[in-house]
């Protein structure tokens, strides 16, 4: 297993309730694993726990066991072992800038340089990562002059340049326009053939098209786990505020579960 969580509960330092409650999950290598739920369900905290950032950076108390790539990432030894092997993309791009780069290429090179790679390898990784997000033309631009969407793609490139084994994507398309958001989601299945992608989002209309598995959280607890059709098509997902627009419309129209999640699925269902 790439990631294994066993009976994990987590509480932030100043919070009165647990952000995660008794979570037991496994993530196999490869594939797009979608983690969703209404806002505050604990999806982002789950990603931080997998990366070891909760509690290492956030503070707080964690109970249970998290094993990422064979190590507990919250320990000193585990952090060293997973450094650069777990990439995290947060929703707001400008808070993820290193503050040390005057060009996009330097920003992308920040992570590989921190890992002590050879300069030639860094240059190659930067070129490849910028090509991946189609931003080669902006390599010389000051990151501070880019739009939110361009900046988010730069940060994605910065994560990709480190060639992590696990991509933790927290609302990756929040700052992107619809076309760029669609492009990012379309790119994920190809990425997931080589890497493990754990995607936390409420943008389910797009995410459902690429996810092979859905973990549904409510108030920090896993309430369902399985393939998208069975999890997001269930009435429980509608009640938890986590399903697609098509499924919500179908439910209001009186359809029974499993609800269709996409327009083609709805057409097929109602055409019968």
């Amino acid at each position, binding site marked *: 297993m790439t990631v294994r969580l066993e009976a994990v509960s987590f509480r932030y330092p100043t919070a009165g309730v647990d952000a995660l409650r008794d979570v037991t999950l496994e993530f196999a290598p490869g594939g797009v694993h979608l983690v969703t739920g209404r806002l505050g369900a604990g999806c982002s905290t789950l990603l*931080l726990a997998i*990366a070891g*950032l909760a509690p*290492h*950076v*956030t503070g707080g108390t964690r109970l249970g066991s998290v094993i990422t790539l064979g190590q507990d990432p919250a320990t000193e030894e585990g*952090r*060293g072992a997973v*450094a*650069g092997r*777990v*990439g*995290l993309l*947060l929703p*707001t791009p400008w*808070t*993820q*800038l*290193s*503050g*040390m*780069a*005057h060009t996009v290429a*330097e920003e992308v*090179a*920040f*992570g*590989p*340089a*921190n*890992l*002590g*790679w*050879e*300069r030639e390898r*860094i240059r190659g990784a930067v070129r490849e990562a910028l090509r991946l997000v189609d931003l080669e033309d902006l390599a010389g631009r000051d990151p*501070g002059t880019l739009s939110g969407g361009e900046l988010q793609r730069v*940060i994605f490139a*910065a*994560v990709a340049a*480190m060639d992590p084994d696990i991509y*933790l994507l927290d609302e990756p398309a929040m700052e992107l326009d619809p076309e760029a958001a669609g492009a990012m989601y379309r790119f994920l299945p190809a990425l997931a053939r080589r890497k493990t992608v754990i995607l936390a989002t409420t943008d389910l209309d797009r995410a459902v098209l690429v996810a092979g598995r859905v973990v549904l959280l409510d108030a920090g607890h896993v309430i369902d786990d399985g393939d998208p059709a069975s999890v997001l098509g269930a009435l429980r997902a509608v009640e938890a505020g986590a399903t697609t627009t098509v499924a919500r419309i179908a439910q209001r129209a009186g359809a029974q579960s499993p609800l269709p999640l996409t327009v083609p699925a709805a057409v097929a269902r109602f055409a019968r």
Partner: protein
Amino acid sequence: MTLGYLPGSGLLHRSHPLTTATLAAVVSVLAFLLPGPAGPGMLVLALCVIAVAAGMRRVLLTSAAFSAPFWAFLILIHGVIGGDFATAAALAGRITAILTVFLLLLGSVHPGRLVDAMLQRGLPFGLAYLLAATLQAVPQLQQRAAAILAAQRCRGLRVGGSLWRRARAVVPLAVPLVLGALAEVDERALALETRGAGSETRRTALEPPLDRPGDRAARWLLLATVVGAAVWRLLT
């Protein structure tokens, strides 16, 4: 007015980052060691020459804009009310010299090069990053303040007019600025950690700054100047 790094290839841009940092530290000490108003005045003059030679005239305008309120305030308090224009000029000169040299540092030293230079000297990454990020924070806060100001004006905040009205307008600007900056700290820490900033591996310098003999000589000369000025002040 730009407070951040200004791309260029002038004298200061070519210098080793620690040479410019030493210049900033030395000028800050000399501003207080040298008797005013002549000493700080000479420092400001010297910095003007350096700025022009380094192709950074814009920094002088920024410095003048930031120094002007201090000059006005000090001349009013010490000069007009206290009758001591020399003290007013000395204090204002010190502030102008320190402001100017730090603006030159900010404008000519790329933060990445500064970190690389400090790492070359064996400083831990965390400390080097903290110093460089502090310099970078100024332009970032400036950009954020401009955005907040624009948003608040759209919502009817009036920032012009009497001194009292301007003072009152500071609160709706400062509160979101400070709170927003504090909120960003958490996310930035998360992002930096996953991008290897806490890694124990030695960071690769992308373009390691060259420490030429001229740089080393300049640093020794600057340090000798401080020592010389201190000895002179003790003896006189």
